[in-house]
Each structure stands twice: as C-alpha cells, then as structure tokens.
C-alpha cells in the first residue's frame, strides 16, 4: 500500500508522538518565527525609514523580547538535543528522557530571564 501523505492538519495532531513530536513542531515554529523576526530586523536596519524604525520599536519592547528569548532558548536547547542524538545514535533509546532533560535546562534558564525582566520592570 502506498504511503498516504494526504494527512490533514487536525488528523496529524491526533498522532500520538508525545514529547518528541511536540518538540519537533515547536522547533519548526520557533525556527520560522526567528527567520521572520531576525530577517525583518536585518531588513529594518538596512532600509531604515519609518517602517524600519517601527519594526525596531517592536523589537525593543520587553514583551517582544521575552517571547523571542523563549523561542531562541527553546530552539537552541532542543537543537542541541537533536545534534547530540544524531551524532551519537546509540543514545536514541533515551530520546524521551532527553526531552525531560531539555526542559530541565530551558525552564531555569528562561525563568532567570523572566525574573530579571520583571525585576527591571518593577524597578527593583
């Protein structure tokens, strides 16, 4: 039987891939978001003008940076997990534990940034 590639979006979400599947989805989304945000930031710097300044104003806002930092940190840590599992295939049997280890790095690291940002915002 031919492999059916015509799988709808919501049907795809029902696939019980668990942690690794969601990490894969989030890795793609965070990667695409970074291409969009950092690409537009480079173009804003290149062309300048009112649109350029407006884009960079969004960039310098605290909320935007907190979202971007989460995307960057997740993409970086999850990417490192992928690199380690790909370059040392023997570790693949521990891939689900690797997801937990990944979040054990992401949560404190992002928590530190969040704590610092809130402290600065409150003027403490």
């Amino acid at each position, binding site marked *: *039987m*031919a*492999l059916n*590639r015509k799988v709808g979006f919501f049907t795809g979400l029902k696939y019980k891939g668990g942690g690794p599947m969601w990490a894969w989805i989030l890795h*793609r989304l965070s*990667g*695409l978001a*970074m*291409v969009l945000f*950092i*690409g537009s930031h*480079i*173009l804003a*710097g*290149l062309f300048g003008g009112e649109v350029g300044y407006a884009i960079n104003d969004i960039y310098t806002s*605290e909320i935007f*940076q907190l979202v971007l*930092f989460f995307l*960057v940190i997740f993409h*970086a840590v999850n*990417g*490192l997990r*992928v*690199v380690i599992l*790909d*370059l040392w295939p023997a570790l693949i049997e521990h891939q689900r534990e690797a997801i937990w280890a990944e979040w054990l790095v992401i949560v404190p690291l992002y928590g*530190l*940034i969040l704590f*610092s*940002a809130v402290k*600065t915002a409150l003027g403490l």
Partner: protein
Amino acid sequence: MTSRKVAKRGFSLDYIMWLFMRLSALGLYLVGIVGFTAAMIWGARNQADINTIVRWTFFPNSFHVASSDIVNIDAFMSIFWDMMQMLAIFFGVTHGINGLRIVVEDYIGSSWWRPIWRGFILVLWVFMMLAAYNLVQASVAY
C-alpha cells in the same frame, strides 16, 4: 505498490545541508559562549541587564549595546569581533534560510516548484548575507 521517493544515499545537497545544520548549530554555540564570556569579563556582569547580555552574546556589535553601560566597549572594536559577528551571521543566516527551505520542501515535495523555490532561496540567502554584512560594516564605523 509504490512508496514515496527518497533521495539517493551519499553525497548530495540534502546530506551536506543536514551536516551543516548540526555543525552550524554547534558553531553558533561556540560564538555565543565566546561573546558571553568576553562580555562577563569586560563589565557586563554588573553593568548590563540580561536582555543586553543575550543580544551581546550573539551579535557583539555597538548598535546592540549602545544603550548599556558596558565600560570596556572599545575592547570589542577589533578585527576579532568583526570576524565573530560575520561567523554568527554566516552560521545564523545560512542555518535559518536552509531551515525555511526544508520546511517548505516538506510540503511541495519533488514537484517542478522545487527548482524554482531553490533558486529563490539561493537569491534570498545571498541578499540576506550582503544585507547583514552591510550592517556589520556600518556598526564598525559607528
């Protein structure tokens, strides 16, 4: 009975880029660790907020830290840091543009759209590299 077509094993664009994605990720970690360590040594530890440090880690140019109080900003004005920025840009832009290529190619398959898409990606990559290089040169002058 047919199955989906997969690329031949061996040396191909997909193999080279698969390897590049992993190595460039490690390269970005290296650039980041060097930038972060230098910023800590040269005063960021006590005099910059965490947002500045994160920006500084990946793109140590004066545009990004003009609003912070890193004392020894002159220490970053050297050919070494220009090269670090260019490395970060080369790894980052190529990794990002190739990531975009992979995501889109997962959905367009091997139709006639693929060569057109790859041509566009190549032009976009060259353009973004030149744009980023232009900004680095501007920040050096700044």
